[in-house]
């Protein structure tokens, strides 16, 4: 019941904050959001399950009741966590709290609505990561978009309307494609499944119970469904060339929202890819390894090249997310412990680091009211602490060892280089790895021009040290990034444990 409690408390908190007076909303939201943090940490401490939730492993904190019956396929309220989802739950709760604190400065109108929506989004995110019934999962999956739409649309920058609606429609269309693909798959399974529970579907699919549907034979159906779901999730990840909603959304979104968007929402895409495509249809994934790995490499390099061309700090970080997510795809398709496990770990790592970077950009923006690289220089002179954390975060992004990003990336590289799914995997890996050079290039250039050099700033704002509550979330994130970088086993153990059952289907 802890999961229900977690989600329920968060929903309640959202309601309470929504009707609270604007003056107290921020503090109240932060305090209330500490509850899910504690809950998720307790879950982490108490976690005792093993194996993959979808493939017959034991499921922690499980609840499974029938919700409604529809045409032979029951819909269940079925939640639980395994080693893949629990880290993401922890990430979600922590990042939300930090994002809420980081919103105190920039958000100055309609606060109660803002914080209410943040909490509402958190609740749905928790649902996404814990739901084990396709339907319940999909409800949460879609419900995340709604608060995000408002958060960008109401509190965003000048072009927020365009960005919000683009995000909203784009990701919804993607969800639809995915939904159709997956439902077709479920129909193809026919009587071999009796509900929409993901474990049941996954096991049936892996057992080869798929039949034909809609005039397609089983093999074609599986491929079509794989492609449809892949495309659907790829938009959320996002994978080039389906990424164009992301920079717009990030640039317009206020900092805390960018943090959530990059930190958690993108992970929904990769999480779903792992849960659905790579867990359920390893044979198709391995058959399509060349296009998938190719897309991953393109995302990495192309995203990094785009980041290199940007002048807006937020756009830089946004495009670099495309790049980082490319690694995840590469790791997933590798079908090795380190590849898939590393991809999962990278989700956490990137969540923390991109959150850190967006927050750091946000703190600078709060003071300077500009994010353009050319508009300022030598900021480190006036905001040494922020600049220091920015530098640390940037190096984290570049994959500095003993920070979480390196762990994730190295695991992925190690796993995908050694992958046996295709003889060209080492080449793909080596190509993708070149991203670590480009990422260093654009981040170092950006830092050199904004943070360092002689101080100059044209705006009328006075550049001083940021308030403590702006810097504190940064520091916490940095600490987490380092802790996870030094001791990845805090999560990596349970991740591997959950990932290993998936691998048996790879390399077929």
């Amino acid at each position: 019941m802890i999961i229900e409690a977690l989600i329920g408390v968060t929903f309640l908190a959202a309601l309470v904050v929504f009707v609270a007076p604007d003056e107290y909303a921020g503090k109240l939201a932060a305090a209330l959001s500490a509850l899910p943090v504690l809950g998720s940490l307790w879950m982490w401490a108490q976690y005792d399950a093993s194996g993959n939730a979808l493939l017959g492993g034991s499921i922690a904190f499980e609840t499974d009741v029938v919700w409604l019956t529809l045409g032979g396929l029951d819909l269940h309220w079925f939640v639980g966590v395994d080693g893949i989802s629990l880290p993401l739950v922890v990430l979600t709760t922590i990042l939300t709290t930090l994002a809420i604190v980081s919103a105190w400065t920039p958000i100055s109108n309609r606060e109660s609505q803002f914080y209410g929506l943040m909490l509402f989004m958190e609740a749905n995110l928790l649902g996404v990561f814990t739901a084990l019934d396709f339907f319940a999962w999909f409800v949460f999956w879609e419900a995340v978009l709604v608060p995000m739409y408002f958060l960008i649309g109401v509190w965003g920058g000048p072009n927020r309307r365009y960005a919000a609606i683009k995000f909203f429609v784009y990701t919804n269309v993607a969800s639809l494609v995915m939904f159709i693909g997956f439902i077709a798959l479920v129909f193809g399974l026919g009587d071999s499944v009796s509900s929409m529970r993901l474990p049941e579907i996954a096991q049936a699919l892996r057992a080869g119970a798929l039949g034909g549907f809609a005039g397609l034979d089983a093999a074609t159906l599986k491929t079509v469904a794989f492609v449809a779901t892949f495309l659907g999730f790829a938009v959320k990840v996002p994978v080039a060339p389906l990424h164009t909603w992301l920079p717009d959304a990030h640039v317009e979104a206020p900092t805390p929202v960018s943090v959530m968007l990059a930190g958690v929402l993108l992970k929904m895409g990769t999480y779903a890819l792992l849960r659905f495509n790579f867990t359920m249809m390893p044979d198709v994934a391995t058959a399509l390894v060349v296009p998938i790995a190719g897309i991953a490499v393109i995302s990495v390099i192309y995203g990094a090249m785009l980041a290199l061309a940007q002048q807006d700090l937020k756009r830089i970080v946004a495009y670099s997310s495309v790049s980082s997510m490319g690694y995840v795809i590469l790791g997933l398709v590798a079908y090795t412990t380190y590849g898939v496990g590393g991809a999962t770990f990278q989700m956490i790592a990137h969540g923390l680091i991109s959150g850190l970077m967006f927050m750091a950009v946000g703190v600078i923006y709060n003071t300077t009211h500009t994010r353009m690289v050319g508009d300022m220089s030598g900021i480190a002179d006036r905001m040494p602490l922020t600049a220091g954390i920015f530098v640390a975060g940037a190096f984290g992004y570049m994959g500095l060892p003993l920070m979480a990003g390196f762990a994730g990336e190295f695991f992925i590289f190690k796993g995908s280089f050694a992958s046996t799914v295709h003889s060209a995997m080492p080449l793909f890996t080596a190509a993708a790895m070149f991203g670590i050079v480009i990422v260093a290039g654009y981040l170092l250039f950006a830092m050199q021009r904004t943070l360092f050099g002689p101080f100059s700033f044209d705006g009328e704002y006075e550049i001083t040290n940021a308030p403590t509550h702006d810097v504190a979330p940064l520091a916490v994130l940095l600490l987490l990034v380092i802790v996870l970088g030094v001791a990845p086993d805090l999560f990596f153990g349970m991740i591997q444990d959950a990932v290993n059952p998936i691998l048996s289907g790879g390399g077929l």
Partner: protein
Amino acid sequence: MFDLALQAEPAATWTALAPAILLGLTGLVLLGIDTIRTDEASNALLASVSAGGSLLAFGTAAWFLVAGTGQERTGGAITLYGDALVVDGMSLFFTLIFTIVTAMVVVASYDYLRDHEHRAVFYSLVLFAATGMTLLSMANSLATVFVSLELASLPSYALVAFLKNDKGSVEAGLKYFLIGAVSSAVFAFGISLVYAVTGSLVLGDVAAAVNAPEMAGVLGIGVLMMIGGFAFKTASVPFHFWAPEAYEGAPAPISAFLSSASKAAGFAVAFRVFVEAFPLGALPAGVDWVIAFQVLAVVTMTLGNFAAATQEKVKRMLAYSSIGHAGYALIGLAALTAGGPNGDVLGASMAHLLVYGFMNTGAFLFIALVEHWGVGRTFEDYNGLASTAPIAAVAMTVFMFSLAGLPPFGGFLSKYALFYSAIEAGFWWLAAVGAINSALSLFYYSRVVKAMWIESPSGDFEIQSRPVGLYAAVIFAGLGTLLLLPAFGPVIETAQTVAATLF
């Protein structure tokens, strides 16, 4: 001798008509009140009588549905008056839709009509129209179908044109009436052709005589013309032309009423007529009406959604979206197959209409609220409404997202059930077209949300009042839309069970 025939029915049976009778009586009572009170009758009294009557009818229908009246477990459908009427699960289910929509509409009208005369006429016409719809869902003979159709339609024409001094309302009434008249003529001609081929009007007898290959062509014309009549009622292509104008011009509660209840009534009768009178297995070649519905469904949902995407006025956008939703609901007929999971398909369509009844009524009632405030009609006029009326704006947001089929609202599940059942029946492409249209619809629905929440108000306007009735109705509809997500289980199960008995 007279009484003999009447008493041939068991005393208890005619009570199955109670919902319809209650509605009709309420209408008469309203007229009575109007007659007794020569001065303008109290708005509150009229509204509460109307709401009471429709809620009573709702309660009765719900009780019947739960108690199993007219359903298999209590001995099957109850037929009355020589098979002219039938009370079964489906009619009761649809009665639920009509009555609850009616209740919301009359409650909302309490505020809407505050400054108007002749309220009693308004309320009574609504109630009579609801009576006609209820009877429509029970009609088991083409004669009853036609008469009930007129009973539902004629008050609607008058209601649309109710604001006699408003050009929009009159124009809407005119167009509605003219297209309606043509459509009913077409429908009547269709009935006459069916009679020409089969020699009977009772649905069951028609079905028995329908397999006459040498007259297949004539029957085909008849069937297609009847489809035309239903298409008019449900605002489907190509008989949809009245809908945008009628919904736009009519008083907003009436738009809600028409686009929710009246549309559902059209579906109710179409379901029964086509399933009962023209069973798929027994038709001669060349009269495959399912294909016609498939074409209409695809064209209707596509046209409705595309046209809605570029509207400037919210109400007109909703009107087109209502056409789009007619297209979705048509899947209920378009995905039928001989021997397929027809109960599921039809039931899903019914469940969608129920959910639609809440969310669409709510949306139009929100517009009524906005019209009551005199804010304006275009998207721009809605700018910043959320800051002045957050509660209502939340409700409207729920309606919009639910109409678009987004979780976590009822509209998502009902659409899902609909598409799911279509796929189940093998019509995955219908579901795909529907799903694509759904995705497109998100764009224009979110424009409303965007205007309310994201845009800043263009000018200062004060909201003078918080009309109780409108608020109550809007919030009720919002809660209904929301609660139909977790409570969708019983709804869909009931719908599919009662639909299955038709086959």
